[in-house]
């Protein structure tokens, strides 16, 4: 297995479905990162994943800027582990929030949010667990890979 240095302080986002981490980087806000060290590992071996492969993202240092809200919606198997002084101190499966604000844009060209300036992109969880745009009720669609 490919070795990536252990991080001392930061977070590890693990059990990402193989091949989807690049799409996830955008949603997490990593695309605009200019300071933190970020490692992306694709197709790492996994005994838990049905495909036998997974992606992993490691962020060294302050990770508070990461937008983790969307993780649980994207993939319920994802885990987030906080690392302090080289040791995992907390591991969790993110819970899907009731509302997502300005994380994903509504893709419905008929939606008011597609033309209105300064209009927040807001999705709320519907009764069947899907996120829907509060304006047009279209289901949220995200690029997963």
């Amino acid at each position: 297995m490919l070795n990536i240095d252990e991080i001392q302080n930061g977070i590890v986002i693990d059990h990402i479905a193989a091949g989807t981490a690049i799409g996830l980087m955008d949603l997490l806000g990593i695309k605009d990162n200019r300071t933190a060290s970020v490692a992306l590992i694709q197709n790492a071996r996994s005994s838990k994943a049905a495909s036998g492969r997974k992606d992993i993202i490691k962020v060294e240092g302050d990770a508070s800027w990461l937008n983790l809200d969307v993780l649980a919606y994207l993939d319920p198997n994802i885990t987030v582990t906080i690392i302090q002084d080289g040791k995992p101190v907390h591991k969790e499966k993110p819970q899907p929030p009731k509302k997502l604000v300005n994380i994903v844009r509504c893709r419905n060209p008929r939606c008011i949010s597609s033309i209105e300036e300064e209009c927040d992109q807001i999705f709320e969880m519907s009764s069947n667990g899907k996120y829907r745009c509060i304006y047009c009720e279209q289901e949220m669609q995200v690029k997963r890979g």
Partner: protein
Amino acid sequence: MRHLIDPLDFSHEEICSLLDLADRISADPKAYCQVAEHKKLATLFYEPSTRTRLSFEAAMLNLGGHVLGFPSENVSSASKGESVADTIRVISCYADIVAMRHPKEGAPLRASRYSRVPVINAGDGGHQHPTQTLTDLMTIRRRKGRLDKLTIGLCGDLKFGRTVHSLIKTMARCKDIRFVLISPEELRVPDYIIKDVLEANQIPYLETRSLEESMPQLDILYMTRVQKERFFNEEDYIRLKNSYILTRDKMALAKPDMAVLHPLPRVNEIALDVDEDPRAAYFEQVQNGVYVRMALIMTLLGLEEPRAAKEGN
């Protein structure tokens, strides 16, 4: 302050109270001719409309109020690029209540978040049209004497037909309702209505392509127009526009007390000779629309019902 953006903004009980008020108004419209004196309704229509705008204006005038507004986007500041949020903040200074139609879905919701006066959704794109639904409910209740235990057929453009979406959402709260959804494959009811409304509430429904086969089981047939303005591609519109035409022959297959509703305008989806059939209720709907909008304006503005009308009923 309350708005009417989504048909579910009012509970079933509130809707029934509003329909009761609309019935009382229809029994004695003159008794209500001064209840909105000194009040102003702004009709903000970013999309052309004849009946809904005039129905709102007639409703306010019938109540003794005044109307102002614009009939299309071209004559408003929207053509200069003004946002909905800014427009409504300005109009809130001029009017006591607003009825907004907009081609973009969710625009009235956006407006309601910035408004200082009640906002009524008068139709937002292919999304919702709650006041048409109130009109439909009033007509159904008057024709059938109830809003429950009904098999409702919806026919035509069920994808972009906002009146269809609003009616399904609202009727889904009534007991023993069954829907028959009759449309071409391309114009099926959107996924969010199927999953979040029908399946989530375990409401029986059937999706079918055949109007003829559906006719005998229906208590209500809700016809819709295939709307040219909702298509990005005119070729698709031309291919689908004549999918369903209700004729006298097809009416012969229906129950003798079925009611035919249509939000209007129609193009050719109901043959003219069906108008003479006593089961045709679509022009009655238009009249009911004025009464129900009068009741809605009174409710949102918290206007007192005239004593004479209350005592007379």
